[in-house]
C-alpha cells in the first residue's frame, strides 16, 4: 500500500513537473466567464501562468509572449467537481464494510479509460468514495484528472488529497429489509468505534505527557548525595522512574482520531429522519465535521442543518433502480429546500458505475427542474462541491491563485444545447472537441 502511494507520489511529481514546466502564459479572451465566486462577466479574459489563474476580468493586461486563444463569445466555467464518484473503482472496492484505514487511492485503477469520457464532459476533480453499506466504508480520496501524454502509459489522474474523508453510513437496509434494531446497531456500532478512538487518543496523550515528565527528570542534574544516614526504618528506596512504553499505534484508530480532531470530515449516508438525527447526535457528541450524504428525508431539518453548518452531498437527483426502503419517501424538490435554507450543497450522479460521473451537469440540470436556482446548481458542481471536499483553495472557481482548471462550453451552462468544446487542467488543454 505504502509502496503504491509512493509510486503515485512519484508519478504526481513527474506529471506535475511536466504540467507546470510551461513558461508561455495563456490568455483566454472574449469569453462569457462564470467565475462562480462572483457575477458572470460578459466579455472577459482569463490569464494563466504556470498552471495557475493570474488574472480574470474585462481589462486584463496580456503579456507580450502570451499565447492568445480567442473564445469568440463561448462560455467559460470552472472545471467541474464531482463530490462522490466511483471512477477508477471496481464493484469490489465499493462493496462497503471496509475499515477506516482503507484508502480509496490504494484501490483506484487510475489507468481506467473511462476517465477520458468523464474528462470530455468537463469533470476535472473527483472524490473517490468508498462504499457505504456497513457503518464504516473506509476513507475517500480526491484526485484531479489530466491527460496522459500519447503513448506514455501514464495514469489519467493525480492524487490531490488522499485520505480526504471518513466514509460512514447509518440505517442502510440490507436486501431491502430494515428494522429499528438494525438502525440501533449501526448507530451504536459507529458510536462504539468513535469512543474506542477517544480512548486510543487519550492513551497517546497520556504517553506523551509521561514521556515529557520522564525526559525532564532524566535531564535534571543528579541530586547531591543522599543524606548520609539512611532512614532508620530501612524502607527500600523508590526505584528510578521507568521509561513510559509507547502504546501500539493502530492505523484504523489513527484515521478515526483524525476525524475526532476535525482534520478530516466524516461523511455519513443516512436517509430516514431518525438516521439523520442520529448522525447529528454523533456529530455533536464527538464534535465531528459532518457531511450528510443523500439525506432523503431531511426537508424538515433543512434550517437546522444550515444552523449547524452541516453540508449535504445529494445524488442522484432521481433515485436509480428498484425501489429501496431508503428512498421510498424521496422528494427531488428537497434539493431546492436545502439550497434555499442556505445549506452548502453538492449535486452528484452518485452511481456505482464510474463513467456516470460524466453526467454531473445533466444530474444538476434535473435539480434545476425541481427548483434549485441555476446559480446554486452551478455552485453545487463547482465551488460548493470543492468547499465540501476541503479543496476550495485549489479548485472550484475562476479566481486568481487557483489551478487553471477550465471548461469551454458552446452555450450557457444550463442550455441543453451546450457542448463541451475544450477542457484545461493546470493550464494544459486536456480535451478538444472534434
Amino acid at each position, binding site marked *: 500500500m505504502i509502496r503504491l502511494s509512493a509510486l503515485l507520489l512519484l508519478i504526481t511529481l513527474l506529471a506535475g513537473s511536466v504540467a507546470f514546466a510551461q513558461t508561455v502564459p495563456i490568455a483566454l479572451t472574449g469569453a462569457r466567464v462564470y467565475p462562480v465566486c462572483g457575477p458572470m462577466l460578459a466579455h472577459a479574459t482569463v490569464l494563466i501562468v504556470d498552471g495557475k489563474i493570474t488574472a480574470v476580468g474585462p481589462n486584463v493586461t496580456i503579456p507580450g509572449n502570451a499565447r492568445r486563444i480567442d473564445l469568440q463569445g463561448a462560455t467559460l466555467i470552472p472545471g467541474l467537481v464531482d463530490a462522490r464518484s466511483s471512477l477508477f473503482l471496481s464493484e469490489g472496492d465499493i462493496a462497503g464494510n471496509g475499515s477506516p484505514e482503507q484508502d480509496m487511492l490504494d484501490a483506484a485503477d487510475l489507468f481506467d479509460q473511462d476517465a477520458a469520457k468523464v474528462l470530455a464532459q468537463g469533470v476535472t476533480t473527483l472524490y473517490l468514495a468508498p462504499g457505504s453499506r456497513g457503518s464504516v466504508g473506509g476513507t475517500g480520496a480526491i484526485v484531479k484528472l489530466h491527460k496522459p501524454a500519447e503513448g506514455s502509459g501514464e495514469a489519467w489522474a493525480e492524487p490531490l488529497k488522499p485520505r480526504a474523508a471518513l466514509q460512514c453510513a447509518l440505517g442502510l437496509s440490507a436486501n431491502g429489509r430494515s428494522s429499528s434494531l438494525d438502525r440501533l446497531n449501526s448507530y451504536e456500532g459507529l458510536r462504539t468505534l468513535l469512543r474506542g478512538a477517544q480512548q486510543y487518543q487519550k492513551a497517546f496523550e497520556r504517553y506523551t505527557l509521561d514521556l515529557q515528565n520522564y525526559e525532564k527528570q532524566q535531564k535534571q542534574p543528579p541530586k547531591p548525595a543522599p543524606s548520609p544516614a539512611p532512614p532508620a526504618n530501612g524502607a527500600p528506596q523508590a526505584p528510578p522512574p521507568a521509561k513510559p512504553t509507547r502504546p501500539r499505534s493502530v492505523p484504523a484508530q489513527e484515521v478515526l482520531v483524525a476525524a475526532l480532531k476535525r482534520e478530516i470530515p466524516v461523511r455519513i449516508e443516512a436517509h430516514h429522519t431518525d438516521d439523520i438525527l442520529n448522525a447529528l447526535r454523533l456529530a455533536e457528541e464527538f464534535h465531528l465535521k459532518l457531511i450528510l450524504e443523500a439525506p432523503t428525508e431531511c426537508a424538515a431539518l433543512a434550517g437546522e442543518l444550515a444552523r449547524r453548518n452541516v453540508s449535504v452531498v445529494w445524488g442522484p437527483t*432521481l433515485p436509480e433502480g*428498484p425501489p429501496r426502503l431508503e428512498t421510498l419517501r424521496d422528494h427531488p424538490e428537497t434539493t431546492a429546500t436545502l439550497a434555499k435554507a442556505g445549506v452548502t450543497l453538492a449535486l452528484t450522479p452518485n452511481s456505482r458505475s464510474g463513467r456516470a460521473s460524466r453526467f454531473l451537469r445533466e*444530474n444538476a440540470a434535473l435539480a434545476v*427542474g425541481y427548483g434549485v436556482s441555476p446559480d446554486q446548481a452551478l455552485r453545487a458542481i463547482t465551488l460548493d462541491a470543492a468547499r465540501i471536499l476541503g479543496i476550495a483553495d485549489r479548485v472550484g472557481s475562476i479566481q486568481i491563485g487557483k489551478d487553471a482548471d477550465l471548461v469551454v462550453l458552446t452555450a450557457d451552462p*444550463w442550455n441543453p444545447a451546450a457542448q463541451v468544446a475544450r477542457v484545461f487542467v493546470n493550464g494544459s488543454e486536456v480535451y478538444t472537441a472534434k
Partner: protein
Amino acid sequence: MREQPETQRAEQKDFSERFTRRAFCGLLMAGAALACREGRAAPGANTLAIRAETLYPVSGPPIHQGVVLVREGKITTVGANVAIPPGARTLEVKTALPGLVDPHSYLGCLYETEEGVDAVTPELRIRDAFDRSDPALGRAARAGITTTCIMPGNGNVLAGQGSVFRLGDAPQLLRDYAAQKVSLTAVNAQRNPTSRAGALALLRRAFDSAGKGQAVSSVSQTNLLADFPTSLDERVHALLPILQGERPVFLHAPTADDIENALRLCSDYHLKGCLLHAVEAFEVCEEIHKSGMPVILSPLHYSDNDRTLTNAAQLAKAGVRVAFCSDAPLSDPASLRLSAALAVKFGLPTADALRALTLTPAEACGIADRVGSLSVGKDADLLLLNGDPIALTSRIEGVVIGGNLIRPGGDYAR
C-alpha cells in the same frame, strides 16, 4: 404558469384545489343552467383553454402561441389563431405537449408480475393484480405520465395480457387486452424451457396448437404440478387475437440474436407488435426497419454505456420508430424525460425524442385514437412545462388528465 379566472367567481386562495374545482364546477353548472333558461349561455362555460408560447402537437410541427381548447375532457380545437371563448378557464404556459404515454410499466402491480409455476400463461391478465392505491401511480402522474400500459414480467415465454390505464385521481382502464407479453429469454433452470431454443420451441408449439384451435398443452409444467388446473380453452382464446393480428405482442428481446429470433417468429406467424427492451437493436436495425416494428427501449441511466446511449439515435437514423418506457417503479417515472434528454445528447433528433414519449408508444399500445398527440377529438391529456420539452432544467407546471389539472409538488408520494 398563469391562470386567468373566467368568471367573477370569488376564488379563495386558501381553499383546497379540489374544493375550489368542485365549487367552481357547481357554480358553472348552475350558471350555465341559469344562462340557458335565460337564453344567453356563456360560450366558454365548461371550457378549458391552454395557451402555450410553444405548443408541441407531435402529430404536426410546433405551434408558436398555440391554443388548445378542451370540453368534457376532449380536445375540441388546436391551433395558432384561436380565439379563447369568453368565460373559459385559461392556463398560460411556456410549453405544452401531449401527456407522456408509457408503453411498459409495473405500476400498481410490482411484485405480482408473473405466475412462475408455468411458462405458458397467456390467459393471465395483469390488471387483476392492479392495486390502484399504489403510491407509485401518483408519482408517475406528477412526472407527466398520463397513460401507462401495465405488463406482466419477463419470466414466462407467454407471460400474459397487459392493460392500458389512464392515471389521475382515479385510474381508469382505457384498453383491457392491449398486448401479450412474449419473452424470448424466459429461461429457468427449475422448469422448461431451460434454454432459449426451448423457449422458441415452446412458443411455436403454443401458436401451432392455438392456430388449429387445439388446447395449448402445458409442456413446461413439472410433474409435481401435473394436476394444476388450467383452463386450456382460455389459452386458445388468449392467443387467437394475436394470431389473427387483432392484438399486438410485446417481445422482450434484449440481445441482437433474441431480436432476430423475435423477427423470425413474427414473420412465421404473422404477428404484429413491437420489440421490447431491445438493448442491442442498433446491431440489427436494418432487419428491424424491414419488419416495420417499433422498438420500446428501457429508460436510460447515468451508468449506461455508449452503446446503450446511442441505440435510439442509430435506430431512428435507420428509420425505425422508437419509444421509451419507464419500467416504473423499477425506475423512477421521471426517467422517461431523462431518457429523452440523454438520447438527444447522444444523437437522437429532438422531434423523434418527443414522439418517443408520446405518439409512438400510443401507437404501440393501440390507443393512438385516444392519446399521444394534441389533435381534435383526442383525450385532453397534456404536460405543461416552463421551458424546452427536452431540457432537464424545465419544470413541470402542471399535468392535465382528461381535462383535469394536477399540480406537481405537494405530497409527491400521492
